[in-house]
């Protein structure tokens, strides 16, 4: 009797927990633990030397900075796109809706090649920028463009269901109570969307940290300039330096995990703070 009462009302808790743990272990934890085990074969001095060389530190900077900038831009434009897709109807809406998912589906290498073709000095857009001494492909700007491309759907798809849930009545009430448009947007709408906006931005950011395929085409992979961390890892592997590669992977893993944790906390905090 007592065991029965401590159980969840929903049946199947034990079974689904078992599946969840087993599945996550197999798909996520096992490969990740391999990374840590490989690294644990190194002494701390070796580890530190691998992860702190100036070439690697520069790659961390490029990767984190470009990913963050891309996520930030996506959070702004993604919000507009999501709002547009939910609140308005216009001809071709379904097509636009499908277009948003394209970066999900397209192999990233294809995206990289396509972007390089467009933004390269002889490409459709690059050709017009070249006379003004603006170069996108093969510069840090190119890395940023590629990461923006792959991050967009994360923001839009996270925001869409939340915007659908928003009640237009609240905006009407706000307006009828004398709030300006500016106030309605920033005091009524944004606070409700804030947690989802952070979640979507965080996902885009996390995805960008690991992106390899598109960046190797549009970034020039120049050490100290446009080389990203995944490329450094590949470079180490090609040199049969498995330990060095996994050491850097560990740093990426831990720092991404900490960042995502912080973002989750921020999301939780904002949900509480902005509760209406």
């Amino acid at each position: 009797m007592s065991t029965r009462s401590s159980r969840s009302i929903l049946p199947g808790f034990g079974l689904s927990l078992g599946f969840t743990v087993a599945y996550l272990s197999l798909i996520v934890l096992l490969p990740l633990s391999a990374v840590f085990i490989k690294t644990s074969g190194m002494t701390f001095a070796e580890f530190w030397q691998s992860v702190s060389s100036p070439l690697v530190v520069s790659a961390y900077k490029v990767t984190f900075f470009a990913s963050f900038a891309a996520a930030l831009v996506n959070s702004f434009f993604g919000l507009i796109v999501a709002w547009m897709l939910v609140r308005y109807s216009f001809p071709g809406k379904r097509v636009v809706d499908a277009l948003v998912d394209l970066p999900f589906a397209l192999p990233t290498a294809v995206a990289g090649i396509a972007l390089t073709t467009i933004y390269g000095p002889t490409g459709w857009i690059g050709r017009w920028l070249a006379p003004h001494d603006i170069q996108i492909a093969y510069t840090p700007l190119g890395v940023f463009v590629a990461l923006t491309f792959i991050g967009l759907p994360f923001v839009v798809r996270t925001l869409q269901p939340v915007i659908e849930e928003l009640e237009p009545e609240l905006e009407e009430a706000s307006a009828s109570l004398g709030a300006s448009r500016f106030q309605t947007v920033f005091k009524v709408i944004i606070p409700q969307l804030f947690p989802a906006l952070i979640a979507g931005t965080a996902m885009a950011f996390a995805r960008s940290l690991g992106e390899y395929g598109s960046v190797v085409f549009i970034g020039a992979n120049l050490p100290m300039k446009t080389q990203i961390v995944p490329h450094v890892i590949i470079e180490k592997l090609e040199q049969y330096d498995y330990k060095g590669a996994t050491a850097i992977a560990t740093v990426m893993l831990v720092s991404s995990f900490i960042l995502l944790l912080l973002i989750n906390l921020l999301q939780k905090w904002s949900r509480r703070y902005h509760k209406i």
Partner: protein
Amino acid sequence: MKIKHLFSLLAAVALAGTALAKDIELLNVSYDPTREFYVDYNAAFAAHWKAKTGDNVIIKQSHGGSGKQARSVIDGLRADVVTLALANDVNALHKNGNLVPANWQQRLPHDSAPYTSTIVFLVRKSSPFYGKIKDWPDLAQPGVAVITPNPKTSGGAQWNYLAAWEYGRRTYGSDEKAKEFVTKIYKNVPVLDSGARGATTTFAQRGIGDVFISWENEAFLAVKEFGTEKFEIVVPSVSILAQPSVSIVDRVVKRKGTEAVATAYLEYLYSDEAQDIIGKHYYRPTAEKAKAKYANVFAKLELFTIDDAFGGWAKAAATHFADNGTFDQIYLRH
């Protein structure tokens, strides 16, 4: 009696039939620019093997950056033979996992390099530097955009790097001066692709760069494909003798029972027929007959070997391409 005979005859025919129809599959793991050559060679070898033994050999090819390909084999890709860009990548198969014996290079003639190549320049005719690029120092002049892949990920690029280094050492007299010289060249590199094919695409199709440091055979292919009015091959005064290495992967062929056919596959590379195909695909043949036939195709220049100039691959790789090697130092300086 008669019936018994008949049965044994039938059985013999049936057995012979299955023996005749034996299909053998080989996997040749190679590097980027050998794609077209091995398509032709595989057809020739399949015909040769069919005539000799009656068996059908189907050869599958896998191409990519040489280092990456070696790593795939180490990680378990079941390659019967490897035909990689440099001996160092085959050495890696010995060091990481003992897939080939230490003496693999002595098993076939010419240090297991049935064909050789060298490193030349491909110059874009529309470039303002066209006509001004004749030899290695011209790549170091300010303003020239030089395309070459990353030597850490591309076998071909290691040859490029070492060729430039040796030129610098010979011309300016010391390793220190050679490093300065190579640094100047790499400061002129706007894109570091990870493989030879990627770099060819960057140069030929995307139109980036004035000059491309290239495998000789890749340069010939580019000129053939894009036309002599677009690019010109410029041969430097000195370059490196690039010896792409081949070996059977002992561990795999023993398990698959393909040792005999895999060995024959590599040995046939030294035959007159194969050497002719090699020449046709702009690799430098090693057999005298083919050498004579293609003598006018390939420019004569002074070629040095990695053993003479750098004391072998192990030493060259440790000095130049390992962590904090000279290649890393180039980028740390600015």
